[in-house]
């Protein structure tokens, strides 16, 4: 018996027919409700083994000795692998910098770093064997922040760096540094009537996707391997996996399995190479599934950041200048730290017109857990700080915080600190106006008519901490700016293959891409695009795999834009081919074939006047049109390493939030009462999904505001790797989230759309904190806000 629960095509037919702009239902929705949708952890193969990872208990240590003999001797164990067993000289991987060892070599640089692998016939057998591996560590001093990382005698996390950033960084423990200078901040500061400064901190957030890292590697007869995996970018994985295995890429065949959320946490490899190594070594299929504890070590987190800001403004409320310095803790390996630095620096001024800026952002190498991609990266950290600054400035000027923001809001044609002109709608002031205009939620909802108290509506909720005592309401606003798509000159493209054929008399489109559907609804949108462009009803979505070209990453809010763009582009090529065929077959039957603008609608070729020329079945006959095409958005360019100038981003997206909170000011507990959002999405291809993205992103921002943080000890070990102590919002923590969707088309983007996923995560956090500040009068310079911060304990 082969692999069961591998992905198969999903077809949407007569029951769901909508094209773009309609809230069609997910093609995978039914399978996901029946429990049949196959996630990576659901994969099963007869005779499969279970892989297990032995990880370092220390954040920084030398591996003095490593003895696997007792583990190997245990019955039921098929293989134990360490660094020395790696098959080729390529023994490191990484998204941008190949600095991450597949297995630790002589030294571990962070808590939880993989040291050895075991394959056994039962997960418990593998665990017991791993416990028998003897590793002798000698602990080394840890580097945990900027001071320890750049001290004169600081241990170097990576000695002998040769990566493309190593030449321009001020210290080898700095991954990347990006200054941006525009105008003359010093001169502008002299014009300011008020100057406010602030130091802010953002804690380490975890993606906390619910489906843990997992996959199944099956060795193939040709010496290659088939890998079924939950990831965000199949081809980037492939590029990193194949060289380590010593296999050509075509012998590593990857198929996307069901993905239980991602949010950036699956951009880097986790167990991909490990499972393949074990499968190739044992000749048996190997399944690896992290549990929640291991998952906290199995993926990168959001960069913790310290941010220093200075803003000035004139008495009439115009911002004069901004200076900032943003230090991001990248942890032990680079992951996407360079891109995070690029975003943090280039978006550090927020969606405001500020002509004179002096900006510096950098990411450190430390012994803390590696940090990389998480929804809104770089921009989330900056937004928390600059929005706090906006409230401070408004207060210093005695102005309403929303009106102050509106006065300085950027609009189309504005110039970014990087010199890039924003050349599509930037309705920042309008979003603020809209979110402020939404009706306010009622007060004291916990009071029931009978005079009782419903604690579920109070801070503390079911824990019964207050019946109204100490509860103060606060309202706060924030707005943010996020780039869409990969930036800084990256060749950001996507590939789509579209097949059109007649099956049982009906035209059917099949869309095949390597896009990682991680829950965002890309597959829904692809079917909608195919219907709109090809005039068909039935669309089959093929599983994502590496048999088709790269779709790029499911990140940076880019998939609807870029892979959606590729599907549209390829559909258009298919349509041209249909029309060619039609002209060849039927062109003599009607002059419009030669003269009119022709469309495909409802399974027919029609003129733009609506006249039917032929049915698709008639045109296609037995022929199947099958086209694979790449599509690119407008090119970007790198930021100048000295001045930060450059057209670095493809598109910007904007969202604004209004948070209403009730704070138990005595106990320091917060109940978010409502979190309203207004966002410009250019064009909502699927309004239901758009709202779902906005509400989900908003909630992750809420989590960062009041509860989510990975805590690290002074020895750089993770203190709370569990869902017991890393808390994410429950349904009782999440308020109603009314959403106002604005659609101002970006003429450069397919259908005018604007990436949706990340912008709502940005402004949610500062809006909640602003509301808590309003309720308490406290400065609150750090997120998450803990009860201790609100009670002075």
């Amino acid at each position, binding site marked *: 018996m082969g692999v069961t629960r591998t992905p198969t095509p999903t077809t949407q037919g007569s029951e769901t027919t909508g094209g773009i702009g309609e809230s069609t239902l997910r093609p995978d929705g039914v399978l996901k409700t029946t429990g049949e949708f196959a996630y990576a952890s659901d994969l099963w193969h007869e005779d499969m083994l279970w892989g297990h990872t032995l990880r370092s208990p220390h954040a920084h240590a030398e591996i003095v000795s490593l003895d696997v003999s007792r583990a190997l001797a245990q019955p039921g164990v098929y293989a134990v692998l360490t660094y020395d067993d790696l098959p080729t000289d390529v023994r490191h991987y990484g998204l941008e910098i190949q600095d991450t060892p597949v297995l630790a070599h002589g030294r571990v640089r962070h808590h939880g770093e993989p040291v050895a692998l075991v394959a056994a016939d039962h997960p418990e057998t593998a665990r017991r064997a791993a416990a028998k591996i003897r590793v002798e560590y000698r602990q080394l001093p840890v580097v945990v922040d900027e001071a320890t990382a750049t001290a004169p005698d600081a241990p170097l996390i990576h000695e002998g760096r040769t990566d493309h950033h190593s030449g321009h960084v001020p210290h080898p423990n700095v991954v990347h540094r990006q200054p941006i200078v525009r105008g003359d901040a010093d001169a502008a500061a002299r014009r300011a009537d008020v100057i406010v400064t602030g130091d802010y901190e953002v804690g380490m957030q975890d993606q906390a996707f619910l489906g843990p890292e997992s996959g199944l590697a099956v060795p193939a007869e040709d010496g290659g391997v088939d890998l079924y995996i939950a990831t965000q970018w199949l081809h980037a994985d492939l590029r990193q996996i194949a060289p380590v295995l010593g296999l050509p890429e075509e012998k590593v065949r990857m198929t996307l399995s069901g993905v239980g959320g991602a949010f950036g946490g699956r951009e880097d490899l986790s167990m991909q190479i490990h499972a393949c190594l074990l499968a190739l070594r044992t000749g048996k299929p190997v399944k690896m599934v992290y549990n929640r504890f291991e998952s906290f070590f199995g993926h990168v987190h959001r960069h913790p950041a310290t941010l220093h800001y200075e803003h000035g403004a004139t008495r009439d409320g115009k911002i004069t200048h901004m200076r900032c310095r943003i230090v991001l803790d990248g942890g032990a390996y680079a992951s996407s730290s360079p891109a995070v630095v690029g975003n943090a620096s280039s978006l550090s001024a927020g969606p405001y017109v500020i002509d004179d800026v002096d900006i510096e952002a950098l990411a450190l190498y430390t012994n803390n857990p590696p940090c990389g991609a998480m929804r809104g990266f770089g921009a989330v950290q900056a937004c928390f700080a600059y929005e706090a600054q906006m409230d401070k400035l408004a207060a210093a000027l005695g102005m309403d915080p929303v009106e102050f923001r509106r006065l300085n809001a950027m609009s189309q044609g504005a110039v970014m600190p990087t010199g890039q002109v924003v050349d599509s709608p930037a309705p920042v002031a309008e979003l603020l106006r809209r979110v402020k205009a939404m009706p306010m939620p009622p007060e004291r909802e916990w009071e029931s008519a009978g005079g009782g*108290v419903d604690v579920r509506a109070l801070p503390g909720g*079911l*824990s019964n*901490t207050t019946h109204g005592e100490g509860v103060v309401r606060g309202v706060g606003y924030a707005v943010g700016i996020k780039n869409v798509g990969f930036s800084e000159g990256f060749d950001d493209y996507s590939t789509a293959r579209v097949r059109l054929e007649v099956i049982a008399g009906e035209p059917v489109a099949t869309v095949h891409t390597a896009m990682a559907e991680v829950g965002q609804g890309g597959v829904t949108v692809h079917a909608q695009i195919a219907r709109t462009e090809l005039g068909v009803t039935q669309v089959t979505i093929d599983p994502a795999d590496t048999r088709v070209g790269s779709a790029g990453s499911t990140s940076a809010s880019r998939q609807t834009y870029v892979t959606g763009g590729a599907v549209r582009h390829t559909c258009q090529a298919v349509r041209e081919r249909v029309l060619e065929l039609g002209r060849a077959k039927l062109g003599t039957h009607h002059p419009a074939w030669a003269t009119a603008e022709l469309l495909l609608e409802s399974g027919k070729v029609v003129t733009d006047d609506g006249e039917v020329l032929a049915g698709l079945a008639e045109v296609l006959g037995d022929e199947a049109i099958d086209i694979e095409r790449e599509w690119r958005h407008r090119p970007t360019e790198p930021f100048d390493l000295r001045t930060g100038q450059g057209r670095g981003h493809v598109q910007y997206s904007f969202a604004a939030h209004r948070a209403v909170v009730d704070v138990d000011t005595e106990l320091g507990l917060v109940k978010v009462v409502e979190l309203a959002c207004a966002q410009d999405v250019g064009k909502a291809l699927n309004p239901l999904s758009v709202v779902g993205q906005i509400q989900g992103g908003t909630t992750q921002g809420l989590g960062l505001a009041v509860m989510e943080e990975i805590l690290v000890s002074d020895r750089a070990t993770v203190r709370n790797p569990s869902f017991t102590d890393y808390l994410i919002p429950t349904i009782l923590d999440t308020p109603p989230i009314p959403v106002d969707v604005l659609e101002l088309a970006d003429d450069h983007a397919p259908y005018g759309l604007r990436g949706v996923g990340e912008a709502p995560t940005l402004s949610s956090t500062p809006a909640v904190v602003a509301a808590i500040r309003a309720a308490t009068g406290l400065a609150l310079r750090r997120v998450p806000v803990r009860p201790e911060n609100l009670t002075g304990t």
Partner: protein
Amino acid sequence: MDFLRPATWEEALAAKAEHPTAVPIAGGTDVMVEINFDHRRPDVLLDLNRVVDLYEWEVGEETVRLGAAVPYTRVIEALGRELPGLALAARTVGSPQIRNRGSVGGNLGAASPAGDSHPPLLAAGAEVEAVSVRGTRLIPVEEFYTGVKRNALAPDELIRAVHIAKADGPQQFSKVGTRNAMVIAVCAFGLALHPATRTVRTGIGSAAPTPVRAGTAEEFLTAALEEEGLWDSGRTVPPSVARQFADLVAACASPIDDVRGSAAYRRHALRVMARRTLGWTWDEYLGNERSARCA
């Protein structure tokens, strides 16, 4: 690992006598977490799910004899009148799914200082019915907790039931967590007024190595209520008395800094909870309650 499935209480006791290291498992909400995360590998698991006696309770004259494995959900649904403090605490345990499986007996067996049922047991007054093939003993709940995650059970003993004094007056429970549901206590506080004896009792959770009563606070408040004649006068508790009671409660705790909260915050929160729960219980005693709705 062995898995024993006694069908009766007698079989369970015999099994425990034969395998003193056996780990009893009923709701599994603690034991299975430890097994799933490789924190514990008992030689023997002793499944108590089939011992029906453990799932029953009897309401007596003075006490409720609560079977050790009665799920929290049943406590909330059926015993809110007799054991209001425990029912309030039960409602804050984990999630609905956990409340369907977890039990007071499990909380006692695990003896985590963060267990939600400890403060109301301490405040109400309770005895643990510990049984072995050697016989039965009733252990006052104050004496049951002997250290962090340690209790007074002998290796061959199992918890048969908890005898909890029926409420003779208002009771309250309050727990601080950093989430509005499904949260482990940063600290917790239980308070019971006992008008019959004109005393008050308390329980502190998650702010000392074991759950504890705030003895000096109880003595102070009991005395103050008496001296001021408040049990009979229908007057509210003077703010100065409430404040001192709260300070004494905080002083009775010996909290630590950990990932869930700081020691200083825990003391502070206990102070606030003590003052508030005193206000709620006293209001209820005076008959002008505005108590939380149990939906």
